[in-house]
Structure formats: structure tokens, C-alpha cells
């Protein structure tokens, strides 16, 4: 079920880094028109600025393709703990859980019956491509900013196809706080400059 105003390309289509070709554009705008009729939740800021009046196309990096090699169900169709413990045990021992310290168990987000999908609080199932819907349940402000292209990384073209990264592309869902990093080197201090402490 389509839950957002964002258009996702089908699995076969890849975003082209050059300007999108005309047939592709036509297909996508057709999709967009249908979707716009269904949903009125699209952010106003994006469409108002379009010089040619076409709605924006956003491509969200999919995540299900990384599940193709080792689907969760490969193991979990035989072994599914009814009451999993935290921290997670043997196969997932490297998993650090530092998200919402009072989380009861894995199945607040993962779907107990089919580990290849995720589960919303309403009981609705979403795929791993729709993590933003899942995360947006508790983080509506970030979800709104993400929808408008303010939060998170967005590359591509501002007047054509945007490529937006989903939540889990930057945040580890199990410990979402971004780690501290090493900064790039500072600019060289001016030759005749006087440091602030030296004043």
C-alpha cells in the first residue's frame, strides 16, 4: 500500500545520473499523476517551486535488495523465538542495541511471523524499503523534515529526479545515534595572525 506521496521506481528502473530520458520521464510523471490524485499529503514547498509545473520525482534507495542474499526467513522460518532477549543472542551477537532503552523486544518493529517484513504499531506490514514509515511513527518531526528534503541526505537534481536516502542508510536502526567522527584538517593559520588567546 502506498503510504507516502513519494514515488518509488520499480525494481527494474535505476536512477540515471544524467538527465532522465524522455520515455522514462513520461512513465514517471504518469505514475506521479495517479498518485497525486490518491494522496493529498504531498509537501507544498516542493511542488510550488517547480518552474515547469511537474511534480518532483524522488527515488528512495531501496534496502530489500540487500536482503536478497541472506533473507531473514532463511533461518527464521525454523527458529523464531517467541520472547527474544536483549541483548540479542548468538547469531546477532555483534548487534549493539542502543535505541529506545526501554524497548521490550525485537518485535516492536520486526514482524514476528515473517522476518522479511516490518510491522507498524497498527499491525500493518511494511517492507524494508519503507523504513521511513516505520521510524516516522515515533519521530514524526524528522519524518516531516525528511519528506520535505530537509532531514537526511538528498542528492541528484533539484528540478528533476531526486535521490533520497532512507533512515537506515545513515542511522543504524539498532543504535541510531551517529558516532563522533574525525574532522578534516583545519585551514592553515594566517602567517601574521594573532591567536585569540594571545590578545
Amino acid at each position, binding site marked *: 500500500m502506498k503510504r507516502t506521496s513519494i514515488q518509488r521506481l520499480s525494481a527494474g528502473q535505476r536512477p540515471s545520473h544524467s538527465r532522465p530520458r524522455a520515455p522514462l520521464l513520461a512513465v514517471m510523471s504518469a505514475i506521479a499523476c495517479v498518485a497525486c490524485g490518491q494522496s493529498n499529503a504531498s509537501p507544498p514547498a516542493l511542488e510550488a517551486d517547480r518552474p515547469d509545473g511537474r511534480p518532483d520525482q524522488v527515488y528512495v534507495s531501496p534496502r530489500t535488495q540487500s536482503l536478497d542474499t541472506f533473507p531473514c526467513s532463511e533461518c527464521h522460518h525454523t527458529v523464531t523465538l517467541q520472547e527474544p532477549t536483549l541483548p540479542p543472542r548468538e547469531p546477532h551477537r555483534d548487534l549493539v542495541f542502543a535505541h529506545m532503552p526501554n524497548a521490550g523486544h525485537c518485535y516492536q518493529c520486526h514482524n514476528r511471523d515473517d522476518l522479511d517484513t516490518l510491522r507498524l504499531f497498527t499491525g500493518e506490514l511494511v517492507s524494508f524499503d519503507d523504513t521511513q514509515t516505520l521510524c516516522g511513527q515515533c519521530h514524526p518531526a524528522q519524518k516531516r523534515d525528511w519528506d520535505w528534503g530537509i532531514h537526511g541526505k538528498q542528492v541528484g537534481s533539484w528540478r528533476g529526479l531526486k535521490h533520497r536516502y532512507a533512515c537506515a542508510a545513515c542511522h543504524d536502526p539498532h543504535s541510531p545515534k551517529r558516532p563522533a567522527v574525525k574532522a578534516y584538517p*583545519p585551514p592553515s593559520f594566517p602567517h601574521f595572525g594573532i591567536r585569540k588567546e594571545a590578545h
Partner: protein
Amino acid sequence: MPGKSISDESTQKRPQARALRRVEAEVETALKTPIDRRGFLKRLGAAGATATAAVATGGCTTSWDTFFQKHYKEMTDEDKERVFARIEKEAEKRFGRRVTVSDPGPLDGVSFAFCISLSLCNGNRKCVHACVEENNQSRNPAIQYIKVVELDRGTLNLEKGTAYYEGDSVPAADKVYLPMQCNQCDNPPCVKACPVEATWKEKDGIVVIDYDWCIGCRYCMAACPYEARRFNYREPQVPRADINPNQGYLSNRVRPKGVVEKCHFCLHRTRNGH
């Protein structure tokens, strides 16, 4: 490679230097030998003529075309074509790289703005270095458009902030980071300060500089409240492999020495929709 460009320059200047040395030697001998005024002037004239000839045949770095180049806004399409071709040729000669120079114009109904979320910036300076690579900025002496200032959390006191912090682990506790670059002001003081109109505000809000028209007086740097403008005190040094061949006349072409530059909103990309 920087070494290559230096050797290129020295080969260019060699005939000129040789001519100058010859003039010096002539003058020296003329001063040493007892000689009447008329003979001295005659000799000096001869030496001068030799020097001029040598300079005219190949030592001169400023061509006729460069000297009489028009202001960007007064250029016709043919002028632009000729000037861009010359800049491309010069770049190829200096860096051995084929580059394309263009000047995408402002788009109708578009004006640009940028936003920075200060609550998200963690001060890692990656943007600073990405900007340097995109815009062919001089690596030595280093010119950077973006300056990331580290401030105490809860203040915006720039006097207590520093842009020279060592970021071994950023974001540091109790610090916030403020990236500063050209804000493309709606009422830009730098444009008013320029005595030759080498910098102006375009229709889509971008404040641009005609590097070939700039006289390097640096009034605009004094006028800018955000310290956004940088001056090329020396010939910009960019490694050959790091040259970005997609260049704009008003944006990221390699700047000449002695001109001011600043953030130009990557107009060679943004105006093409990127």
C-alpha cells in the same frame, strides 16, 4: 602536477628574463665606461629595442585579446565564444587537461537559497574539502570558501568561536558548529563597494564575480560582513589530476592571480538543475 606548471611558467618567461638581463648588462657597461651623453642614450635605445623585440616575440603573458577583453555583461555571444576558447586553451597548456568553460544563465522564475541545519552540523569539514575539489580552488596557498566556526553551545558569540579547531572527535561536547560562506545577500555590500563593477547580483540571487574584470583592490573583502571573500595572493596551485573539467566562466574556472573569489553557489551545476 604542480611541478609541471612551474616549469611551464619558467620556459614561458625565459626569453623575457634573458632580454632583461641583457638590458641590465648594457646599462652596467654604459655606466662603467666613460662616455658622453649622446652615446649613452644611443646604446640604451639599442638595448631597449632588443628587449622589446624579445618580449613581443614570446615572453609576454598578457595577450592583446586578454588586455582588450570586455566586461562579461558587455560581451556578445561571439566574444564569449572566443574568450571561453582562450581560457580552455590556457587551461590545457597549463594543466594538460581538456576543460570546458560555459556560462549557464539564470533560469526564469528561479531564485536560489540555501539552508543549514545547525542542530545537525557536526563540524567534520567534509563540505569544505568537497567545495575545494569541485571549484578548483588553490591548494597552496589553500583557499577555502566555507569556514566552519566552533562555538560554545547556547551562544552565537563569534568572538569566542574559532575556525581553527582540531577535530579529533567531532561534535565535541558543549560545542555547536556554524559553517560560514557567502550568503548571497539580497542587498550585498560587496557589490556596492566594488569600484569597477566586477561583482554583481544576478537575477536568480547569485552574487558573481568576473575574475577577468576584478582589479584586486579587495574593497569587497572589507565590505563583506561574513568574511566570505578570498584573495588570490599567489598563482593558484591545483594538482593536474584534481582539476575539475566542468568549469563556469563566472564560477569555478581556475582563477588568475590577484583577484577576489568567493562562493558562487556552484552555478555551473545549480543552473543546470543539479
